[in-house]
């Protein structure tokens, strides 16, 4: 297999949080390989460590031990500039709470990463409009986040995550704050982008609707990988959960 086949690899990943006297081990030796173009769901109950794993993979936090490789580059070796460069161009982030900049319009939110990437203003705006069209919000580009519904805000966030054509989109509970129907639309949108644009999607979630579209599901329990399931294994058991 070529070295480039795996876009994300983790090795013996550990993370400890110290709160007062007690040390909490949120991740305990996680070993993970994610192929280019895969749609991965990280599943697990609250407190299982999936958000921590998400933060590690996204370079948003530093592991206590172990390493994360993005495109075969050890993240621990990167300086602040290189890390910012990586976050800017290689990874797109989607959050449960959307985290749009409240003072900016949808268009400005989506074009913000292009500014950080050094793109010319007109190019950035054109790219942002294109992405807003893609997520179905082309008409509402001039609205502030507060003037959009939860589902629409998450669409803006997805468009923003894609602004610099990243290789990986990391989504932390992207449907956590949305109702069933909107959540399903968002999942389908992510799946569509994964299929059409070949973006690797890694999503931490406990939304069972995600199972349906994932290539692989990684179950986390107490900071360890409990099991990894292929899509084909679970198709039989899940059936359909739509229509609520």
């Amino acid at each position, binding site marked *: 297999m070529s070295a480039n086949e795996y876009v994300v690899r983790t090795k013996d990943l550990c993370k400890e949080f110290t709160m007062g006297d007690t040390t909490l081990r949120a991740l305990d030796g996680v070993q993970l390989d994610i192929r280019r173009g895969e749609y991965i769901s990280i599943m697990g109950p609250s407190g299982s460590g999936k958000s921590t794993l998400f933060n590690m993979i996204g370079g*948003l*936090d530093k592991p206590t031990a172990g390493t994360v490789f993005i495109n075969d580059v050890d993240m621990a070796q990167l300086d*602040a500039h290189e890390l910012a460069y990586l*976050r800017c161009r290689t990874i797109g982030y989607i959050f449960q709470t959307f*985290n749009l900049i409240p003072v*900016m319009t949808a268009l400005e939110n989506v074009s913000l990463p292009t500014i*950080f990437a050094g793109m010319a*203003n007109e190019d950035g705006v054109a790219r942002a409009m294109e992405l807003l069209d893609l997520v179905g919000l082309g008409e509402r580009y001039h609205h502030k986040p507060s003037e959009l519904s939860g589902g629409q805000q998450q669409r803006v966030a997805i468009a923003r995550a894609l602004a610099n054509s990243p290789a990986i989109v990391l989504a932390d509970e992207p449907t956590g704050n949305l109702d069933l129907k909107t959540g399903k639309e968002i999942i389908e949108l992510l799946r569509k982008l994964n299929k059409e644009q070949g973006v690797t999607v890694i999503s931490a979630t406990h939304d069972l609707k995600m199972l349906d579209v994932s290539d692989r599901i990684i179950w986390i329990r107490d900071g360890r990988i409990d099991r990894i399931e292929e899509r084909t294994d679970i198709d039989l058991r899940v059936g359909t959960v739509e229509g609520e």
Partner: protein
Amino acid sequence: MRLPLGRAFLISLKSIRIRIGRSLITASGVFLGIAFLVSVLAQGLVQWPLPAKDVLPGYTRLDGEFEGPGDYPMWSPVSREEALAAGMPEAAVDRASRGGPTLDLSKAVAEMNYFRENERRLPAARALDGAYRRLPRSLLTGKDTDTVEASDLRAGGLPDDEVERIAKTGSVTLKDLKAAKARAAGIVRRMEGTKARLAAFGTVPDSVIARLSGEKEVTLADVLAAAAQRSASRKAITSAAERTNLMIVNAGGRKIRVDLTRNGSAEKVRMVSGDVVFIPEAAGANRRIWLVVMSLLVCTIGITNAMLMAVTERFREIGTMKCLGALDRFVVELFLFESALLGIAASVAGAFAGFGAVMLLAAATKGWAVFGQVGVLDVLWLFGIGAAVGCTVTLVATVAPAFRAAKLPPAAALRMEV
């Protein structure tokens, strides 16, 4: 990967506009602090140019007898040798210089005038005293409440005008009569005393005084030094004067303000005979310094608190920015821009408000003339101080939390709940 400054500027401007309520609260912290500071500083400004009589409260008139609040003649120093050379008798020089190397000519003139007035009035005072002494003994015996008729006093030989003075109603109580007698004796005693002490001045020719007291230039330093010689507290006054502003009121009514802290030393200021120097009272100067320090502290703490809150409540935004690939520097720059804009606007507005309030208050109590007497440069200086303090404090108060926020790993910034 550098963000254009223009873009950062626009983003921060927009950020202020959107969060206008929060920004106004932050800005009002800066505004109030600077208004307070400038109003304290402006107090000094409106006091200075007022007419001398209005300046006196809180200020000491520095002249021959500057310790009293009195209206003494201008201190015009002459050296002993000069006075002797001009023909002033040695006894008079000794008397006026009190054994020191210089003498206060104006003081000498005043004492000489007093002496001459004394000479003129002494015979009348003696005559009155004599008349009281010659009053018949029968008129002065009895109880305090007994009354004496005016006609009896006239018959006893008391001059008509004195009788008129003490017995307006046609009679006087025995107690009052005795008091009037003692007063007449006292006046004579005092006049004879001063005559003995001031007799030396009787020999000073007018021409000598005129020659010595002509246009004589001295430096302010001379005045201060001579003043400092006279008592221990004068040292404190001199040093207070060196630290603060001084005002010279010229004989013609022209007012010159000398700020020693800015114009260098007192040596440069030349004075002529007749100029009057006002210096702030030491206690007043200390009170002002105390007020300025306190207002600085209050505005620093107020601004720091407002800016700290403004930054910490936006940790999530900072985390998001970093996830999108913003460099630490950009985050800090963004907050600096925003707080600089707020700081400048609020400081200038605060300076206007503080200055305006003081001026309006001064105008209401002392008349509109105060506006004409405030120098443009002084006002600019005041505004400069206000804006500089406001911006510095705002920036310092922003940099620390913004820098801390930018250094955090994005996950920690996103987790932070405020």
